């Protein structure tokens, strides 16, 4: 790298800055700093003539470092960096600081002090700039193919969107048939339309219009170009990096040739084995060779491995007119390379048999909402009639119990959000089929958020469905007359009721599907406490995960109704398409580097990295070193703060750069107060300082702000160095511990600060000189307040005397 030639550009900004700061003094100060070859002043530098002046100076003066003091740096930096890059300078050699919100405004009543602080800030920026190194723009190849896990309503819609956008899509479903939980729901609320009805693909030439809806089996879904459906399959391993994930899939044998089966049902007729039908929640039996309902995809029979007697029987083989049954099919293993993965594994009903007072599984007439939905479905086990499983007689008195296993700390504390509507829907379908049926819903709260939903509730009441506000304490069974008795206290009438019922329907909680945990660990993504997949950010990135190229949609993140699942699915498709659309992933080189020589393969950093960007690679016998994936590294520096051997550095925040900045900030005081170094994270910490300036709040000028990517980067010795550099106090300002933009940085910094305080005490330094504050952007007032109180606290102490200073 050439000798640094620094150009300093001072924007005099709005009235505030020019009234407070002495720009003549600042300019002459900057001119005298070593390696500064040019100082220019203008009203603004981030657009128009000012920007041209920077470009011109870079070209003519051969500047290789640019320091700009400009207002709203988070905005102006974008323009400046772009212009500088056009002028031929590496964009990472630019440093932009804010003399207005960080200096002129908060210290407007003390112009001399403000100017002194501005000098320190300028010097710090220049010293840091001198040590900056050029970084590259990195490009990684990305395959234009996508794996969708889960063939329910969400997965199918995502897959369809992506295939139609031209991506190669692999849709993997663990069951032998597509459709998922939603297809078993009979009808959907609030439209009461058929559950197996889906959007027909726009490529279906026979559709009357591309907006038509059709049953799954006639939608042409599987004939969409670029879409490959793998049923009866599961993911067993995921390796690789974003843009190129290598996925291993195990496809269980169907034992029936998909090309030959003509769905004649002769095989099921001769099959001698009967087992409970899981698709219909054990409400009926099915054969060992079966199809769920005639309307499913693929329309091919399948053999239940656990039930079939195979070669001992062979009746189906003999009867099949097309010789489609192949009892010797084996499990196939496939590996696929895909650029991105969409997880659409959905949710399932909680098994309420653990709630002993409701006797599910013991009394046959206690069923779940899904079982009732199967009965309502005319393709279901009862052909649409509502019966008591114990006697197969019509159920005339039905009691629904809401919140079974949900909103209950013994089981699942959350509200599953859709069960109220499901029960209302089922209750109304039952009631409209037979108005004589006596229907009661026992609830804690009826939650009908969503368009049309409250109207739905109103209609249920109009139809004569009864509502009892109370959670039943027990369901008893009178063996004499085979009646169920639901004990419930009605909180509205303040009476204990004993409701007699033929059928009790439990509105059970919704929980993550089985295997969610294993899948999450294979994919390297996190689960929420409730066991559902965790999105990157519920507000802004509801379909993304912390791992690039892995997306979520539908009930995999939380129970959702069908409309919301659709919304989520389309949104995930768009995000995945955006990620892969150019066929490459572009990112800058603001990444961590590891010094192999110092790395002691202690495994701290791979475990700590919130993005899974660090792995251990073998370097010789018994010797491993950590390696950073530049593709996955987000440049937060938490690994730097974790490494016990100082073997990791961030390219754009090297300890040498930070130290130079620290020393410069402490080099000029200009106030009579003790100097404080405020180390702020670039997210909420630094922006809280911005917002205090914007809000014209005042705090003393002895507080000097240094930006770091995340407070998690801090090492304890850096805090000690700050004191050595002349700070009388150190404030560490990070995001809220549960709102860290890099997940774990802020809580880690908090712990480190605690530890550093203990060390300070050991060294005979008051631990109160060091504090950590957790702020969000809007808490500018709090920043001003703690800066003030910290100063007052330090003023009461005698000055810190370190032997070296």
């Amino acid at each position, binding site marked *: 790298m050439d000798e640094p030639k620094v150009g300093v550009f001072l924007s005099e900004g709005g009235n505030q800055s020019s009234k407070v700061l002495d720009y003549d003094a600042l300019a002459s100060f900057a001119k005298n700093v070593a390696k500064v070859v040019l100082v220019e002043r203008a009203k603004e530098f981030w657009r128009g003539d000012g920007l041209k002046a920077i470009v011109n100076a870079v070209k003519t003066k051969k500047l290789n470092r640019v320091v700009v003091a400009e207002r709203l740096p988070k905005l102006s930096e974008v323009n400046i960096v772009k212009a500088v890059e056009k002028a031929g300078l590496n964009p990472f050699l630019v440093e932009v600081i804010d003399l207005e919100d960080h200096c002129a405004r908060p210290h407007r009543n003390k112009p001399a002090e403000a100017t002194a602080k501005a000098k320190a800030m300028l010097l710090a920026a220049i010293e840091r700039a001198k040590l900056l190194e050029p970084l590259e723009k990195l490009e990684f190849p990305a395959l234009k193919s996508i794996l969708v896990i889960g063939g329910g309503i969400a997965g199918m819609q995502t897959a369809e969107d992506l295939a139609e956008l031209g991506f190669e899509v692999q849709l993997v479903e663990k069951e032998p048939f597509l459709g998922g939980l939603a297809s078993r729901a009979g009808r959907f609320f609030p439209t009461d339309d058929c559950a197996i009805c889906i959007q027909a693909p726009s490529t279906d030439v026979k559709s009357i219009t591309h907006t038509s809806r059709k049953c799954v089996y006639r939608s042409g879904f599987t004939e969409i170009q670029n879409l490959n459906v793998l049923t009866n399959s599961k993911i067993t391993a995921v390796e690789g990096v974003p843009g190129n994930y290598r996925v291993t899939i195990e496809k269980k044998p169907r034992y029936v040739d998909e090309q030959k089966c003509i769905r004649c049902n002769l095989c099921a007729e001769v099959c001698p084995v009967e087992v409970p039908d899981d698709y219909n929640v054990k409400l009926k039996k099915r054969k060992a060779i079966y199809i769920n309902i005639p309307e499913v995809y693929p329309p091919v029979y399948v053999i239940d491995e656990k039930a079939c007697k195979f070669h001992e029987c062979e009746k189906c083989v003999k009867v099949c007119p097309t010789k489609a049954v192949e009892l010797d099919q084996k499990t196939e293993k496939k590996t696929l390379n895909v650029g991105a993965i969409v997880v659409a594994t959905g949710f399932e009903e909680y098994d309420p048999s653990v709630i*002993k*007072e409701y*006797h599910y599984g*013991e009394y046959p007439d206690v069923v779940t909402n899904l079982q009732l939905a199967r009965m309502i479905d005319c393709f279901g086990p009862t052909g649409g009639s509502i019966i008591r499983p114990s006697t197969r007689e019509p159920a005339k008195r039905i009691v629904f119990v809401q919140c079974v296993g949900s909103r209950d700390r013994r089981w699942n504390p959350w509200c599953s959000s859709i069960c109220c509507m499901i029960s209302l829907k089922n209750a109304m379908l039952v009631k409209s089929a037979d108005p004589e049926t006596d229907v009661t819903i026992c609830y804690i709260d009826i939650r009908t958020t969503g368009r049309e939903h409250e109207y739905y509730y109103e209609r249920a009441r109009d139809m004569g469905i009864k509502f009892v506000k109370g959670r039943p304490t*027990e369901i*008893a*069974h*009178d*063996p*004499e007359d085979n009646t169920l*008795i639901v004990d419930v206290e009605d909180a509205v009438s303040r009476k204990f009721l*004993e409701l007699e019922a033929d059928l009790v329907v439990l509105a059970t909680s919704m929980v993550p599907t089985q295997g969610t945990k294993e899948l999450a660990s294979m994919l390297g993504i996190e689960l929420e406490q409730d066991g559902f997949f965790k999105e990157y950010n519920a507000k802004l990135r509801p379909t993304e995960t912390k791992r690039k190229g892995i997306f979520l949609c539908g009930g995999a993140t939380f129970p959702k109704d069908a409309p919301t699942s659709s919304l989520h699915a389309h949104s995930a498709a768009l995000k995945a398409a955006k990620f892969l659309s150019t066929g490459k992933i572009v990112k800058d080189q603001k990444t961590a580097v590891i010094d192999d020589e110092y790395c002691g393969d202690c495994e701290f950093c791979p475990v700590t990295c919130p993005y899974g960007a660090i792995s251990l690679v073998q370097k010789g016998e018994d010797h491993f070193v950590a390696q950073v994936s530049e593709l996955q590294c987000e440049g937060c520096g938490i690994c730097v703060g974790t490494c016990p051997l100082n073997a990791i550095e961030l390219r754009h925040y090297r300890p040498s750069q930070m130290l130079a900045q620290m020393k410069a900030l402490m080099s000029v005081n200009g106030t009579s107060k003790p100097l404080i170094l405020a180390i702020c994270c670039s997210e909420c910490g630094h922006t809280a300082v911005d917002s205090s300036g914007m809000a014209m709040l005042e705090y003393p000028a002895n507080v000097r702000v240094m930006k770091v990517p995340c407070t998690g980067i801090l090492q304890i010795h850096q805090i000690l160095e700050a004191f050595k550099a002349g700070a009388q106090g150190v404030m560490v300002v990070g995001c809220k511990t549960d709102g860290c933009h890099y997940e774990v940085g802020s809580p880690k910094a908090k712990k480190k600060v605690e530890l550093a305080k203990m060390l300070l005490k050991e060294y005979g330094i008051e631990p109160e000189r060091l504090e950590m504050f957790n702020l969000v952007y809007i808490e500018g007032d709090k920043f001003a307040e703690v800066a003030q109180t910290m100063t007052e606290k330090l003023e009461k102490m005698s000055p810190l005397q370190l032997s070296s200073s």
Partner: protein
Amino acid sequence: MTRYALFLGCTIPARQPHYEVSARKSLAKLGIDLVDLEGMTCCAPPPLQSIDLETSLSMAAYNISLAEEADLDIVTLCTGCFESLAIANNLLRENAKLKERVNKILSNAGKEFRGNKEVRHYLQVLMKDVGIDHLKKNVTRKLGNLKVATFYGCHSLRPSALLKFDDPERPKLFDNLVEALGAKSIWYRNKLKCCGGLLRGYADDIALAIARDKIAMATKAGADCLSTLCPFCFLTLDLGQFLMKSTYHEEYNLPILHYTELLSLSLGIDPKELALDFHKIRVDKVLSKIS
């Protein structure tokens, strides 16, 4: 011969000698040797725990320490005593700090709680030491056509994690032991609900309404008698029927029998030896059905 220290408590010797006599005679017949220890005091009934836990545990631990000194496990008849002693025994075994504090109190009386003995209810003893099969063999008078409404009461079942008596939602122990005698244990509504007894003296009307519900449901289900484990439940449901008569003008005449009384009858013990006159509701109906 299996030996147990018998813990009688207060209510049984004072008010229900028929419970004691039937227990002593029937258990002896089944090979259970009941040892009376001197110096047993109040069990510290469960409500006391909510007033002062340490005091109540100390009282219970005092009784247990007597059994420890005699190297005997304890058996109780009253489920209230069972609950107090079993809670104390398990709680003090699990919680070393609590044990230390209680032992400090006990040291004033020269006692120490060690926690090396078990506290059992006699139903558990019948199940564990006698066994259903052995019990069936000893039955000489089958209660063939007797429909018994079993009533567990509260103290035997909860807190289930500490008492480990039976599944509190679906208990079977009592019913199995009734059926072992050849009788039929019937289902009736609200079988697992409170007898109402603990509300007596505070809200007599509600207590009586609850007890009445119990008796009415068992009657409706066709019970010949209702069988209890707890002397307090017995009192509430037996004597309570007189109050039901005066308050509601309803006459149920449903005999209430402790399980030991049914057991004694089925083991062939002469009813005359069982002090059945202590029952407020005559049990003649039951006797006529089984003889």
